[in-house]
């Protein structure tokens, strides 16, 4: 076993090489951006619900020149930054950064990551990326405004987005990609190499399966988007024309479609990168709080792996309206629909886990059950977008926005919240307040369904995306009331998240330390007392059991059996 010295403050808390500290650093970063991106969402909703009316409270202070009204330039910057921040700076660090770091070594019984220094650099690379991204707010022309997809030619100076914001966005994303790449290499190596004695792949908790598979996708596809972004950066800065064509190109034309292909070859796996850890975490939590083994564990793990393979073959369903060849359109539709087989299999396994269980409605469990609902809806509504003909109508409408908010915003945020409520006792030694947690869950659950379901209804009525003022259109005028309702519930949704923040702060300040294994869970992290020392395990644990040994008939006095407990069978 390696020896870990006690380090000074800087080495321990700031440039720490301890995976647990790095995980917490990612969590604070992710939470900061979650609230920042959420605030942007509130402002976007204000503009859509109350078009061109002054923003209450902060409007006059933020935009005195416009009388407190959000102008179209600012609006475009807002939804661009909202998308970018939520996907790359909130969800990614919250799920993959935080729980990838915190859980992987603890749950596989390793002393730390395979490359602790790389891990530290990964966080600081992310930090630099964040500073770069936020610096664009201080530019006179403002931040990026070509959407989170940032399609050229719009995102190149030739396409009419003025100023540096778009270039800064590209650079920030390249740094972010480098950070993600370092993390992915680290996670894969750690899971493959550092599993403790007896920890077979099929004894790994499903959370680790999810994080591991997500890292594989990251390591394959982040380089693709990185290459695309470097080409975009060259287009933006030194005048190459990879993605320019027609009148915007001076020489031999490049191809704007090339960027879309490169973007979605990464972009579609990206949504699975974000959702895979959630699937894993939810599978584990359902098992813990049903006091019952995860139903069809192997099937779930294999289904998730199958989806990983399929996810890299379906990017074309984002591009049905670009004029792609009919043969390609059909192939992409078929491959996309294939995903529904493994998805429905693990989804059924979730229900199977609840079946004949002994269900405790703790806060993490509420969020995990919430994921079944929101992911069910999000997954099923994907069918419309996978269908070429339906997508011809629904593409680029609010329907798509509602759909991906169900899968990404609702499912992934609920998964992250479940994980934070569940592992908070192991991260900080304290239990988050369950009453505030319940209000947080029910408030969020109800309001998010009003928000995202109604967004889909808007898209159904033809409401297209990314428009500053829907009242410009005759066919959208009757939707004004619906837009207003969505905004009201969106504000409520925002308010309920503040409770979560209060809960975290309150708990850290005032709560007492809780038991080392408050949930009676079986995985390895619960065998160590808080605070977990650098190096984690005093003695490398030996694994005898699977990760979900609950209510085993041959264990008498309690209903769980730790992974490293040996019993005679």
């Amino acid at each position: 076993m390696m020896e870990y010295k006690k380090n000074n403050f800087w080495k321990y808390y700031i440039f720490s090489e301890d995976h647990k500290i790095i995980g917490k650093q990612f969590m604070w970063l992710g939470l900061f951006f979650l609230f920042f991106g959420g605030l942007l969402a509130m402002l976007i909703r204000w503009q859509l619900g109350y078009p061109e009316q002054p923003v209450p409270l902060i409007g006059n202070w933020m935009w005195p020149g416009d009388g407190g009204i959000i102008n179209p330039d600012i609006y475009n910057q807002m939804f661009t930054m909202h998308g970018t921040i939520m996907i790359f700076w909130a969800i990614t660090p919250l799920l993959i950064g935080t729980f990838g770091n915190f859980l992987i070594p603890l749950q596989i019984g390793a002393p730390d990551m395979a490359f602790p220094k790389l891990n530290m650099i990964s966080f600081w690379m992310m930090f630099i990326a964040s500073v770069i991204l936020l610096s664009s707010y201080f530019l006179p022309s403002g931040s990026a405004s070509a959407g989170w997809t940032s399609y050229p030619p719009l995102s190149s100076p030739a396409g009419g987005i003025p100023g540096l914001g778009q270039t800064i966005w590209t650079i920030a994303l390249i740094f972010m990609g480098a950070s993600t790449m370092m993390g992915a290499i680290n996670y894969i190596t750690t899971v493959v190499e550092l599993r403790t004695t007896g920890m077979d792949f099929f004894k790994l908790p499903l959370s680790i399966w999810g994080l591991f598979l997500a890292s594989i996708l990251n390591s394959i596809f982040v380089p693709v988007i990185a290459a695309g972004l470097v080409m975009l950066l060259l287009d933006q800065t030194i005048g190459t024309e990879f993605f320019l064509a027609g009148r915007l190109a001076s020489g031999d034309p490049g191809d704007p479609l090339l960027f879309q292909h490169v973007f979605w070859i990464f972009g579609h796996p990206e949504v699975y990168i974000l959702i895979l850890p959630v699937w894993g975490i939810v599978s584990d939590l359902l098992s813990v709080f049903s006091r019952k083994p995860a139903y069809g564990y192997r099937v779930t793990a294999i289904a998730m792996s199958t989806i990983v393979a399929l996810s890299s073959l379906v990017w074309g369903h984002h591009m049905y309206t670009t004029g792609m060849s009919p043969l390609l359109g059909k192939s992409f539709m078929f491959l996309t629909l294939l995903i529904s087989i493994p998805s429905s299999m693990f989804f059924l396994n979730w229900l199977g886990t609840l079946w004949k269980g002994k269900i405790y409605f703790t806060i993490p469990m509420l969020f995990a059950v919430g994921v079944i609902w929101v992911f069910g809806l999000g997954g099923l509504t994907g069918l419309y977008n996978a269908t070429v003909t339906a997508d011809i109508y629904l593409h680029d409408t609010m329907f798509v926005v509602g759909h991906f908010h169900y899968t990404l915003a609702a499912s992934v945020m609920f998964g992250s919240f479940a994980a934070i409520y569940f592992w908070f006792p192991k991260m900080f030694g304290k239990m988050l307040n369950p009453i505030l947690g319940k209000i947080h869950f029910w408030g969020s659950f109800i309001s998010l369904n009003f928000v995202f379901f109604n967004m889909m209804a808007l898209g159904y009525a033809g409401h297209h995306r990314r428009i500053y003022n829907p009242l410009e259109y005759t066919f959208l005028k009757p939707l004004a009331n619906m837009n207003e309702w969505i905004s009201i519930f969106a504000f409520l949704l925002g308010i309920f998240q503040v409770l979560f923040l209060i809960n975290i702060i309150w708990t850290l300040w005032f709560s007492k330390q809780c038991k080392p294994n408050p949930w009676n869970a079986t995985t390895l992290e619960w065998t160590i007392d808080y605070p977990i020392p650098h190096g984690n395990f005093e003695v490398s644990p030996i694994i005898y059991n699977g990760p979900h040994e609950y209510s085993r008939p041959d264990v008498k006095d309690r209903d769980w059996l730790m992974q490293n407990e040996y019993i005679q069978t």
Partner: protein
Amino acid sequence: MIIKNKSKQWRFIPLSSIWFQDLPEDISLDGYRIDNVIHYTDLIISIYFGIVVAALLYFIIRYRASLGNKAVYDKGDKKKNIIITACLGLLVFLSVDAVIEAMSFKDLREAFWNFPDNEKVVRIEVMPQQFAWNFRYPGPDKVFGNEDDIIPAQNQMHIPINRPVVIQLASWDVIHSFYLPNFRIKQDATPGMITALWFQATKTGVFDIACAELCGNSHYKMLGYLTVEKEEDFEQWLIDNSPEDLGMADEWDEWDNDEQEDAGIPEDWGWAWKELK
């Protein structure tokens, strides 16, 4: 819900304006196909989601710990369980995915990707620019790219009722998307490439043309008007807008022309109709 509006008066937002919206009025020959596939999907996913929710609610109520249930140690990994799960997965695929796939492929083959090619076809070139729509009609000789081409005022598109309209698109600057909600269709216009779509109107009137792809800060104002009119009116409109005729309608067009110049209507169209396979 009661809320204060701009004029500081309290008013009521109707509750009926949540949860459900109808598709906009369909005035096209083939729009019903898209409505059908959407409605089938609505129905089938409502059934499946209903089953999931029913099972979920039943399980979490029936098996909650406070009832004193005992959990059953069942890993669900026997061959029987796996086969049942796989069969249910396959059932979902066959009843949902396979059906909508068959519907969609049939519609693509019969309608959306089956471009009409006969005497009745009206051919129009569309070139969007930031933030307006330009249209070009071939004129009496039916050939694009010569003197008698008709370029009407920006954002004004006229088509005759009950005749197939084939459109080719290319963008002047950035990517735009030609979107007709009442016809259920949408097609990106990308610089450097020509894309196409076709449709046929079944009702006269004026309908919105929207840009569905973000194209800059005034993307939301990129609104065009599609006028569907009777054959004779359409022919008359073409004559009124033909290049020789423009001089005669000076008074009207002077004001219009100024605006066109401000918006920078492309002098040189730069591309012409291409026979696509």
